């Protein structure tokens, strides 16, 4: 599934159309709610009530079921995030190699806490328990890029790459 977050901004109509097509292609398959929500979050950046209602209607399933899944997984967001999402890995390997320090430095630099978004909507911070790149620990992920062997010093330059 392609993520569309880096493409140029689509109109709402185009976004819904894209989502609708994906749902239509997969109609009737078992267990495809999560892929649909995944794509929807890719398109819209987050999953507001309207998008959840849309998914429920198009998939012909109850809204309560969609919202149950959305609120269960921390991956899914119901509030808008920054243009770039920084995920700090707090898995065991990263943690012992100083992930906590990196997180604190990041929070200092951006002036926000976990789950928050900078005022200019540029960055959001979230954390995860292992990104599966333990060999590169400590690791942060910005959007879909993995940055390994992180140090507090390297942070500033890396953030500059993301406008």
């Amino acid at each position, binding site marked *: 599934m392609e993520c569309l977050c880096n493409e140029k901004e689509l109109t709402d109509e185009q976004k819904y159309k894209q989502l609708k097509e994906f749902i239509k292609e997969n109609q009737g398959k078992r267990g495809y709610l999560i892929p649909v929500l995944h794509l929807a979050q890719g398109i819209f950046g987050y999953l507001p009530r309207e998008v959840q209602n849309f998914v429920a209607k198009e998939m012909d399933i*109850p*809204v*309560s*079921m*969609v*919202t*149950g899944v959305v*609120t*269960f997984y921390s991956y899914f967001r119901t509030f808008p995030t920054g243009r770039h999402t920084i995920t700090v890995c707090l898995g065991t390997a990263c943690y012992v190699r100083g992930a906590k320090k990196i997180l604190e430095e990041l929070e200092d630099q951006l002036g926000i806490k976990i789950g928050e978004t900078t005022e200019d909507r540029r960055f959001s911070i979230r954390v995860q328990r292992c990104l599966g790149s333990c060999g590169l620990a400590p690791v942060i992920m910005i959007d879909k890029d993995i940055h390994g062997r992180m140090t507090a010093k390297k942070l500033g330059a890396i953030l500059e790459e993301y406008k």
Partner: protein
Amino acid sequence: MALVHITIDNQKLEIEEGTTILEAAQKAGIKIPTLCAMPELGFKPGSCRVCMVEVEGLPNLAASCVYPVREGIVIHTHSERTRQARKVVLELLLTDHPLDCMTCEKNGDCTLQDLAYELGVKESRFGRGEKKLPLDESNPFIVRDLSKCVLCGRCVEMCNEIQQTYALNVGYRGSKTKIIADGDSDLRYSECVSCGQCIAVCPVGALIDKNAQGKGRTWEFSRVKTTCNYCGCGCNFDFNVKEGKVVKVTSNPQSVVNGINLCVKGRFGYDYIHREDRLATPLIKKKGKFEEASWEEAYQLISDKFTQIKRESGSDSLAVLSSAKCTNEENYLLMKFSRAILGTNNVDHCARLCHSSTVAGLAQAFGSGAMTNSIKEIAEASAIYLTGSNTTENHPIIALEIKKAVTKKGAKLIVADPREIELVKYATLWLRQRPGTDVALFNGLMNVIITEGLEDKEFIAQRTEGYEEFKNTVLRYTPEVVEKITGVPAEDIKKAARIYATAPTTSLIYSMGITQHTTGTDNVLCTANIAMLTGNVGKENTGVNPLRGQSNVQGACDLGALPNFYSGYQKVTDTSVKDKFSKAWGVDLSDQEGLTVVEILNAAYEGKIRGLFIMAENPAMSDPDLNHAREALKRTEFLVVSDIFMSETAELADVVLPGVTVAEKDGTITNTERRVQRVRKTIEPLADSKPEWQIICELAQKMGYKMNYNHPGEIMEEIAQLTPIYGGIHYNRLDDGGLQWPCPDAHHPGTKYLHKDKFSRGKGKFFAVEYKEAAELPDEEYPFIFTTGRVLYHFHTGTITRRSKGLNEIYPEPLVEINPQDAEELKVKEGELVEVASRRGKIRAKVQVTEKSGKGVVFMSFHFREAAANLLTNAALDPVSKIPEYKVCAVKVQKIA
């Protein structure tokens, strides 16, 4: 399944292998506490960990609700280890459960509280956390206090698996987990249909009956089991009474028809009982104004007037309308009053307006006009053909059986309905016929069945007659011809026909979408034809099942509140029957059939009916072409109405008598599956009101006829003697689930399904039925088809539901349902006012734009006096049953600027 030997708390037990420990313990009379499991409903999630038991040889404790027994297993349900485990679970739950038992509505009826008491838990050793979630009081009936929720999942199970509304689900996770409605909104704004099933199963005080708050603790209530007085399902429940007041309704798991299931009206729609505007004393109209009167005055006046009219113009200038809202005993007495005292067979009731075509049609074809099967058999059918019944809204509990059949038992559902009703979601096939073309559609289906050789030849040969003539007619209705008439694609007709004919059992369910036409009897004959053609009648789980609308419309018909029958469908024209009743009642009787509802009003309009007694009916709202009907009531020289409220009809009366609600009298009512069940007196009649059976007796005495019973049970004894199908109905036999007629003698167990081995009339008769158009079709001036029905939250003319605070709050005003395309052409949007006009009248109401209505079809319910749909409907009658055509007339719709 094999039997195994188990030991449970030192008791030896032989039990089926695979039974859960929890159920085994129940059989052994041992109570294992649970918070989540409801084994009787098949809900065993094993999640609350309260039902943990010790199994010898197992290192861990086992959740008894999911752990199956096996040979030789030794179980301890109340050992020290289990006690400790339960204690821990409880303490964890109590870390964030509000400890406000003193003011909690659930106090005394709370599983958590009981457990804490049993285990001696005063506080949690894990400390107290803060769990403060906002109270959700948005719904008019249900308060959700999620701070008290223990996340057992019962409400979600009820909502999704039994009720299948899918309003509730578990949301979030970890310590933030909570039950959400829709997208975590307030209950009022979710899919919730306010059935309150969730309240019935909540083990704690998280879900509470809003209107019973502060009105009593559980131990203060006395509970009286009775039968619901709304629709024909015949659900049982308990009235909870404190100090002479009905406070609330609670489920009674012993109910045969419904178990713990109830709909919004049954559970929450009884607050009308104690309304202040209940009629309190008899009223006599003097110079156009009602004045309070004594019963004596009222009886004297009625007696004088009826006697005078009878003397001057003869018995047939009097008439009586009985009531499908009153008991069997009252219907019997009123028809006796009409026939024996007034001397006329002019007695009828609102069944004329809903299912008279069923009674007429099925009587001709089978010999008996009632649902052939039982409600419980619906879920066992392999296919269901549902037509002209919006079951979800009109018979909510029967709809649950249909949903169960489809989703749990794999039945195929075919819906034939012009409206996109809720059950279409469950259907394999939806046939959207043009309103009023049912005969053509049925003939089309049967044409396919015959041409493809799918008919049940053996059944036809052995059990029916009239087949050849019928076949010749049907053969002309090819799917292509029928597609042109009905608008249903020929391919779909073929598919539906194949499903109908090839499924092992196909239950046909219909309601007023079939009966309320000028071709109503023809439609009903078609249902009988297709059932006989496919051998789907006279057997378990399959048959022809008309759903009756009112709580006792079946009983009112059974007890002879009809112009052509005495009780038990014994003909008034039959001399031996007449002689039997004449002898029993000690008077001469008429052998002339009387007039039907609409005919009575027409005769009143013309001055031929001078005196009319109406018991608890509201023709000034329910009859077609209301302007005409109301004028007829106004012209009636002497009109007596008994009711509990000042209905639209009572307003036109000369004398109004205060009757009582179902909570204030004893009696029986008969539900749609022919089940005779008790209603029980719960409170004393309010103010100066009296039960209708007593009113009739006292009036009869005043008119010089000896009619004296101490209790309705004595009336039923008389009914049983004179009515073969009720011959074995006695009050002492009705306490345990009632009895289904025919029940000819005191030892007969009642009849689950009809026409086994032999039809009531001997052989089943096929009728060749030709398609005829509705009496009034759209034209240039009136381009829309207008069709009427009910909505979930209201009942009939709204006399009681509009006086129920919550029901009226949730559905406060009439809506005109219009298809989006039509709305666009009319340039109206949702919520805008329109005027709907027919040749007979016009009304104003707000628009609801919905796909439910097909293009060119406008739907309205008939509950609202401020926009009475029946001002528009057509009083054209079915020639056989005299049912009016409520389902089709022509209207125009205009936006009001």
